[in-house]
């Protein structure tokens, strides 16, 4: 008797608490929280399916629901569809007790729909047979799952979090903050309201600040389904975002942070109740969705999907919770209709083809929020302003500058390796679109990596574009490609950056990693027909009238293949890139090359003092002196045709000294400072000839057969 009184008191307390919290929540609604719907929110269904669809299309949505609501965890799908309808893994309950206060925990168990109207978690304790002691026990059981080491994260900056949230693609799925004006939006332009449903995130209200940061840092370990992907935030970014999401409507964190930081005083668990709770967990088949380390038993399977009787509104379809182990999802009419239509078509359902499988993955993971493929999905126009650029030049590219790329042809566009990198979240290094702020988040590998092969299979052309990238053909010389890519060729560098250098004009795709990113066939396909390959692209049809397009494209490829070992193209290359500078070197530079007016045996000597001279080692005589900059080594180091080395300085002076005809050069030696002394023989006598700057003048010291001659001035 005493127990029931106690329970009753607790029940009343609970109701009051719920009412208070519920009220409080509504009043405190975060400006970026979408208004929740009153049924389980499945984003792929919400966006692409509605009551006005024809039955076939609605049935497609039904299949999506069967998977996303994890119906298939209890109702086995037909074997042929087992690979597609794999269901989802629900929230990882490890650490629950550290994330949620025990009040929230209890409420979530009693009726998740009350706490989160749009939750996909069904109610199991809302039926007529509800036993509050079971709820209590379950709470005790779940309270044992605490995070062992509690990490303190920095308290984030709300404004930075707010900015981040509205720049990198969060708004692709979630709602933008009401009234927020993205940077750079001109005054007087109204912010368009989003029309498509936004994925709710009421979670922020329930988690404490650190747990939210922790969640953002590693959402997939919290929610193994990966429906919330991992943006690989830095700790600071995650803390900023958490602070923003946790802030009140006034965009301030509560003054007393303890509430936000640490949900609750520790909850004393009772070992008997814990054990009872564990049994309840198994009894209610919770482990069908939540995988638990300490529960080995297989979840109970209900009737397979094919055997379900869906003619009546009973079981999971019931309007009110029926109790027992029957989950109550709170499905709305359209969803019930969709599932019914799906179940009707189940026996005839074919295993999807490549395109179907791709569409399925893009729908379930909501890739469509940002990417378009085959005319489906893509960023909603009203959300495009929440995808930012970090380079004002990119503003002139329109949607090509800020919106994640379309996925049409991606299977023949990206190499498997690069595609995998992108999917594994390694795409940021060597990013092709450095101006784009949107980030590609990381999903579960097992969901995304198979896409690489599926895309490849689905996107192949019946006749692949042929291109020879071997390097074997005579025209496969990288310097040909270099000429083409530069401003004196096709001028690619006007828009494309390369090897760490920005383009001359607006930024578009950086070409540095082209050969790692792109399949050679696609590279050619795109260059030959930019509009046909990427409708709307800004890329001009540069090869339209070129007779040797095939060869030239291979030349471009050869150059890009070796780009890290190649000189930059004309336009991006500057004199400084190959300037020999004795000042930087800190000592004289001695440099042999061809030089005009010095000859084919020229040895130029540059001094840090800014005075330079060139010696003709064939005739054994100084021929030129000049001031300022020294030499451009480009032609000597890179040019196949060995153009003479160019003097970069000024006041070039010809030195017109008479020397005996028959001089034999013998080399030079460097002294401790690196100044060369040229050695040669004239009529059997040994000459030592050294020129170096003294007091702003080039002074010559000549020693003949060990006898020092009178000092001479070479120049100035």
């Amino acid at each position, binding site marked *: 008797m005493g127990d029931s009184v106690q329970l009753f008191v607790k029940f009343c307390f609970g109701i009051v608490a719920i009412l208070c919290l519920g009220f409080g929540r509504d009043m405190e609604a975060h400006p970026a929280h979408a208004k929740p719907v009153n049924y389980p929110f499945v984003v792929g269904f919400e966006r692409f399916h509605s009551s006005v669809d024809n039955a076939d299309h609605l049935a497609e949505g039904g299949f999506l629901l069967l998977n996303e609501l994890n119906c298939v965890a209890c109702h086995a799908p037909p074997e042929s569809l087992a690979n597609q309808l794999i269901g989802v893994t629900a929230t990882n309950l490890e650490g629950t007790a550290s994330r949620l206060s025990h009040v929230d925990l209890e409420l979530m168990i009693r009726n998740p729909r009350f706490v989160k109207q749009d939750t996909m978690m069904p109610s199991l304790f809302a039926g007529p047979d509800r036993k509050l002691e079971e709820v209590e026990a379950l709470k005790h059981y779940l309270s044992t799952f605490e995070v062992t080491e509690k990490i303190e994260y920095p308290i984030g900056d709300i404004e930075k979090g707010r900015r981040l949230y509205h720049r990198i693609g969060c708004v692709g799925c979630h709602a933008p903050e009401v009234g927020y004006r993205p940077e750079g939006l001109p005054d007087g332009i109204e912010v368009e309201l989003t029309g498509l449903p936004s994925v709710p995130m009421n979670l922020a209200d329930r988690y404490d600040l650190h747990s939210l940061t922790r969640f953002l840092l590693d959402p997939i370990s919290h929610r193994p389904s990966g429906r919330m992907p991992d943006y690989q935030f830095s700790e600071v970014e995650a803390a900023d975002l958490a602070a923003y999401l946790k802030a009140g409507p006034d965009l301030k964190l509560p003054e007393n942070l303890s509430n936000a930081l640490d949900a609750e005083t520790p909850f004393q668990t009772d070992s008997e109740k814990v054990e009872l709770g564990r049994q309840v967990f198994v009894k209610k088949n919770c482990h069908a969705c939540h995988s638990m380390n300490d529960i080995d038993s297989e979840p109970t399977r209900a009737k397979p999907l094919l055997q379900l009787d869906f003619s009546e509104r009973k079981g999971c379809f019931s309007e009110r919770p029926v109790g027992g182990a029957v989950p109550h999802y709170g499905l709305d009419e359209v969803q019930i209709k969709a599932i019914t239509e799906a179940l009707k078509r189940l026996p005839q359902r074919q295993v999807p083809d490549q395109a179907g499988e791709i569409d399925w993955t893009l729908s379930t993971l909501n890739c469509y929020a940002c990417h378009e493929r085959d005319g489906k999905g893509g960023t909603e126009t009203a959300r495009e302003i929440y995808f930012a650029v970090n380079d004002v030049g990119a503003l002139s590219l329109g949607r090509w500058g800020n919106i994640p790329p379309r996925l049409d042809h991606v299977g023949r566009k990206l190499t498997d*390796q690069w595609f995998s990198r992108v999917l594994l979240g390694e795409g940021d290094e060597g990013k092709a679109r450095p101006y784009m702020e949107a980030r590609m988040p990381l999903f579960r590998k097992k969901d995304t990596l198979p896409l690489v092969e599926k895309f490849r299979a689905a996107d192949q052309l019946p006749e692949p574009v042929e291109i*020879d*990238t071997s*390097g*074997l053909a005579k025209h496969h010389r990288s310097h040909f490609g270099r000429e083409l890519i530069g401003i004196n060729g096709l001028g690619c560098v006007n828009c494309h950056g390369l090897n760490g250098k920005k383009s001359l004009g607006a930024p578009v795709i950086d070409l540095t990693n082209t050969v790692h990113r792109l399949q050679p066939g696609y590279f050619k396909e795109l260059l030959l027909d930019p509009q046909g390959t990427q409708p709307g692209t800004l890329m001009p049809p540069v090869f339209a009238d070129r007779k040797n397009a095939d060869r030239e494209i291979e030349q471009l490829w050869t150059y890009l293949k070796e780009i890290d070992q190649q000189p930059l193209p004309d336009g991006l290359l500057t004199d400084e890139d190959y300037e020999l500078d004795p000042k930087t070197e800190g000592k004289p530079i001695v440099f042999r090359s*061809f030089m005009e007016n010095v000859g084919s045996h020229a040895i130029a000597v540059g001094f840090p003092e800014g005075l330079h001279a060139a010696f003709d080692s064939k005739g054994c005589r100084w021929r030129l002196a000049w001031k300022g900059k020294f030499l451009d080594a480009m032609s000597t180091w890179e040019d196949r045709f060995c153009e003479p080395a160019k003097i970069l300085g000024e006041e070039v002076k010809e030195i017109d000294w008479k020397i005996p005809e028959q001089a034999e050069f013998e*080399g030079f030696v460097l002294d401790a400072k690196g100044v060369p002394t040229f050695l040669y023989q004239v009529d059997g006598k040994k000459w030592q000839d050294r020129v170096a700057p003294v007091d702003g003048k080039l002074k010559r010291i000549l020693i003949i057969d060990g006898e020092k001659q009178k000092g001479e001035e070479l120049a100035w």
Partner: protein
Amino acid sequence: MVNGKIPKPRLPIVISSEPASREISRLPIRDSNLVETRVHHWRRKVFIHLKNYFFARDPSARRLAQDDNSQSLLATDLTGLGHRPNRVRSAIFAFLLSLGIAAGQDFDYDTQIEESYYPIVTLPIPDHIKLEASGLATMPDGKIAIATRKGEVWILENPEVVSEKPKDYSWKRFATGLHEPLGLTWHEGSLYTSQRSEVTRLEDRDGDGQADAYLTAAKGWGVSGNYHEYAYGPVFDSKGDMWITLNINLGEGQELLPSTPGDVLWRGWAMRQKPGGPLLPVACGLRSPIGLGTNHLGDVFSTDQQGNWWATCSLIHLREGAFFGHADSLRDAGHELSPVKHPGKLPKDITTAEAIEKVPGYAPPAVWFPYTKIGMSTTGLLCDQTKGSFGPFTNQLFVGEFTESFVSRVFLEKVEGQYQGACFHFRKGLQCAALNMTFSKDGKSMFVGESNRGWNSLGTRSFGLEKITWSGRVPFEIKTMEATSSGFRLIFTKKLMRNTAENLFSYQMKSYTHNYWSKYGSDEVDEQEVQITAVKVADDNRSVELICEGLRSGYIHELDASGVWAEDRTALLHAEAYYTLNRIPK
């Protein structure tokens, strides 16, 4: 091979757990293909076994089977075109092929198999070094000195290190400001290198690790400023004489100074300088004799490249007074120092085989490298004096290949006092054009210097340094191919499976020559089948003697011995040999 070569990544890529030596260091990006590679490898083996089993006894069918393109084999067999000696076997084979056992296409099997005997490691190079390695020299302390086309000499202090980090190798700059050095040699305590206008001896007098004396060791040839005026070497022969080779110039020079008569002197010549003496011309007729080296006896050889006057690439024995064929160099034959007698007007419409008889003083190459069959542009030369540390090819020569990025192998013998011999494939799959090679001090590895600037080459890099190491496993190869009065004697690296070696149909041979003309390259002409009439296998099962009918002196004799198996059931790694039969031994 559109996707056959995957570029070397500069970014970290996921690497699988498979520590296969080369893919990790060189091609991590294609790592996902490893499994596939092994499958192909296995398929290839099965394919060869089947091929041999089903076709070994029938020459024409075997010829079909040599075609690794299973499709054409199938088509020919099934449509019944051509000779069909054994339809049942063909049909079975075709059936097996159709089961997918046959080799897949678009895959370079040889490279993969070569890899297991001679793995290649790509050395990581610091970003700031443009290591267009044009000359390599092993120093007495084991360090490797590397001359670069940009004009520097680098010392690789720890060449034996195995590391992904460039700095672990310790790269030290020894010399700078040289003018396109193409060759590097360690001789009597100094490094020697050929620049465009002189041979320079580099000395480090104060011992700070950097050269401070750049001394002229040889000079005096013409340099007009034409890009093609490369100078190679030097090498030192057994007497200590220094040798260099000089490219012919292609086109005009540059007006850098008023021109003088000596501006193109000795272009296309090999030069020699005795200790203390002047640099003197030795032989001419060269075009682009980039590979310069000595054999184990100290005789000096050079490679030359296909082009005008050169029908295909070659290996030549440099010797006093010889004229090797490129006519432009004859302009200096009348010079007072020239040891070459001008051959007079060169006859037209002759082959290189006929030139031996008809052109006075013409010296045929010791070895021709049939174009595209075994390279397109021979480069560096290196004699295997590792005493077995690098495998079973003691005293043979290794030859670099530019366009197709590989290293081939040459066996030489003397017949009537002149060198001749055969070339074989050795190791493909370098990342870039091979220019120059040297052995590590312990002889276990061959370093290959690479640069393709100005031309094209198979592979993915513009320059670099790679190391070919002997794994210790002996590949099954034709080790030597000697001419006999009645045919050839082949010595193999492994014991033979006697029945395959005894089988006449295991061998095929043809001979051909080239046009000798001023045009760029030549097709193979006057081709004839060489009939092998008998095979004698030696008692030790190591060698065979082929008795041939229709040997022609002056002709290249191309052998395909792909039917021969080793006792351990391996097929020949390279079944082709190209013997230049300048003289038939009496």
